[in-house]
């Protein structure tokens, strides 16, 4: 332990493995054609379990994490953004999307070589841009078959059979379309296995997030970004579910042994929306004050699936396998998959910011927070929708809130000195001095 430190800290043992899984993912996608495999593209939110029924040699490139990977490389990102602007697209559009398009326009893959064109597009439509993102991809690539599922059936507490039928019906159509598009026969057993794995990995991520309720927090949000990303790549894969299990065990061990993410935790915060990926140093800046962001609705609830436990607090959603449900056919698998995904915490706010405020206040309470830092993210209208109302709601609930404007994927819209100046003022109002 460093002299003067409150807690012992230690890097994660499974860190290298997370890195390896991510690197392999991008490599497998790029190399898929070498062995006769299939490449598809779609969002991190898409029903990725469904194309699994086409075989084990089907690889995906999820769009948001790919856009974020570009953003983390400032020089490449700038070239991508400029290429997109030159092609006539507005500068205030989703910055992941603009990075992604730029990568196509430049024909450069962020992980080396030319941009690997997908064989088909398998998307779901969550915000105004999601389906249209790929209309443009298809324009730029000279036409790619695409199928996009509409999930806009309302918040989870209002879900009924009619709403599920709409989503599940599209999934059935989607499977027919996949068979026609790829010429392959669909294997329901593989779908069922993928659905089990998806429920498992996303419940595990929720469990890991809940372990961060501990004081000191075993994980800081900056670290969580590198771990949760695996779920955004392939939440339906056994590799990710197994990794999350290993991670869950390690984090639990950290909690039991008071191993902290930062040595001097004295102020617990949460953020909101994607961070400005090129400037994660902001989180290190907080550490000078003994302040730690222990997560956010975004980091917890985009991949993690939660439910309210008997004691009234949030815990991981019980999986079908834990409930002893045996999935026997396609219809049942799709229904479970749809229902599971519609309960995603990070999905509810699309209908009402007030639902999101409720969840944020819950996190603030259960994760014992002292304050909240909201990223007014110019790069993503989908996650920034209603954020001003969230601010009002959190203040009303008694939590101090700081806001800063930035952009997850376009560094030109983020001002580091102004942001740290705001953090200084916020820490001052919280009565926290630099260590």
């Amino acid at each position, binding site marked *: 332990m460093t002299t003067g430190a409150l807690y012992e800290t230690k890097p994660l043992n499974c860190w290298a493995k997370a890195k390896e899984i991510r690197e392999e993912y991008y490599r497998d996608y790029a190399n898929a054609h070498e062995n006769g495999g299939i490449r598809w593209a779609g969002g991190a939110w898409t029903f990725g379990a469904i194309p699994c029924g086409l075989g084990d040699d089907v690889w995906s490139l999820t769009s948001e994490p790919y856009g974020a990977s570009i953003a983390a490389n400032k020089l490449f990102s700038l070239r991508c953004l400029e290429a997109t602007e030159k092609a006539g697209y507005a500068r205030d559009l989703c910055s992941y999307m603009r990075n992604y398009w730029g990568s196509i326009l430049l024909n450069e893959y962020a992980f080396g070589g030319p941009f690997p064109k997908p064989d088909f597009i398998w998307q779901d439509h969550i915000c105004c841009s999601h389906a249209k993102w790929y209309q443009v991809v298809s324009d730029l690539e000279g036409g790619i078959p695409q199928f996009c599922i509409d999930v806009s059936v309302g918040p989870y507490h209002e879900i009924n059979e009619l709403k599920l039928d709409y989503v599940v019906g599209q999934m059935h159509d989607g499977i027919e379309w996949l068979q026609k598009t790829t010429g392959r026969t669909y294997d329901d057993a593989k779908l069922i296995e993928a659905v089990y794995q998806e429920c498992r990995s996303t419940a595990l991520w929720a469990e890991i997030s809940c372990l961060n309720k501990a004081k000191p927090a075993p994980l800081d949000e900056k670290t969580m970004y590198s771990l949760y990303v695996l779920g955004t790549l392939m939440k339906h894969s056994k590799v990710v579910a197994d990794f999350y299990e290993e991670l869950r065990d390690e984090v639990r061990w950290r909690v039991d042994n008071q191993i902290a993410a930062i040595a001097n935790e004295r102020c617990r915060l949460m953020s909101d929306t994607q961070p400005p990926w090129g400037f994660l140093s902001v989180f290190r800046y907080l550490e000078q004050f003994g302040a730690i962001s222990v997560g956010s609705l975004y980091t917890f609830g985009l991949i993690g699936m939660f439910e309210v436990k008997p004691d009234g607090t949030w815990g991981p959603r019980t999986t079908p396998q834990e409930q002893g449900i045996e999935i026997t056919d396609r219809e049942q698998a799709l229904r479970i998959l749809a229902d599971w995904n519609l309960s995603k915490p990070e999905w509810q706010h699309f209908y009402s910011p007030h639902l999101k405020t409720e969840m944020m206040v819950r996190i603030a309470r259960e994760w014992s927070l002292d304050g909240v830092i909201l990223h*007014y993210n110019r790069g993503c209208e989908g996650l920034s929708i209603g954020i001003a109302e969230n601010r009002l709601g959190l*203040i009303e609930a008694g939590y*101090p*809130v700081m*806001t800063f*404007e930035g952009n997850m994927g376009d560094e030109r*819209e983020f*001002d580091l000195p*102004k942001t740290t*100046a*705001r953090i*200084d*003022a916020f820490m*001052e*109002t919280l009565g926290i001095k630099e260590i």
Partner: protein
Amino acid sequence: MITAGIDMGSKTVKVVIVKDGEIVGKHMLLAGFEAQEAAETAFAASLEAAGLTADDIEAIVATGAGRKNAPHTDRDITEVGSGAKGAHHLYPAVRTVIDVGAEEGRAIRCTEDGKVLDFALNEKCAAGAGAFTEAMSRALEVPIEELGPMSLQSQNPTPMNAQCAVFAESEVVSLLHARTPKQDIARSVHDAIASRIVSLAKKVGFEPEVVFIGGVAHNPGFVDSLERALECKVIIPEDPEFIGAYGAALAAAES
């Protein structure tokens, strides 16, 4: 107790010497390229005005955007903290402080005992209230001091959208070409900036009393626009641009 506050603003450096809560010396200089040098000069000048020497000063606190570069300081506080402290000391009933300087606009809400509850700063697209009025005074070929009184004579203000200062400047040029009276243009400029500042005040949920500090508080045209948009009167201290430095000097007396 004698203390000093140094406000390293983006355009000017302000120094205040405070003895038992009262300002006994003050000085302001353009920051220029050598802000540190300007601060030294302003510090010396304010000591001279107070009839004191550096040895008489028991503690010095810096504030402002460039506060980390201030000379002689014991510690620093943010411009949010110093503005609230200075305003609250002068007017204990203050609940909202509006601070408009050269490059930034701020709204701060505080408690009965002067503690900062919430604050809002302008975002990129609405930056530079002070600098913006200066640019407008150049476009209108009117000395900056006259811009305020001139706008008070406006008969027929036209609403304009000043989200972006660069775009607004060319809008002013269009208005000039359309032979819009300068008085009306001046009023539109003030109304547009005031509207942005009031948005910030509403964001923190402003309550009276409202104290208006920062250099722009000297502009009566802007004050008028601000009061109309807020639908309430604002209190302006005698030396509005020195309140940040004053708050820093008060903080120095506490430490």
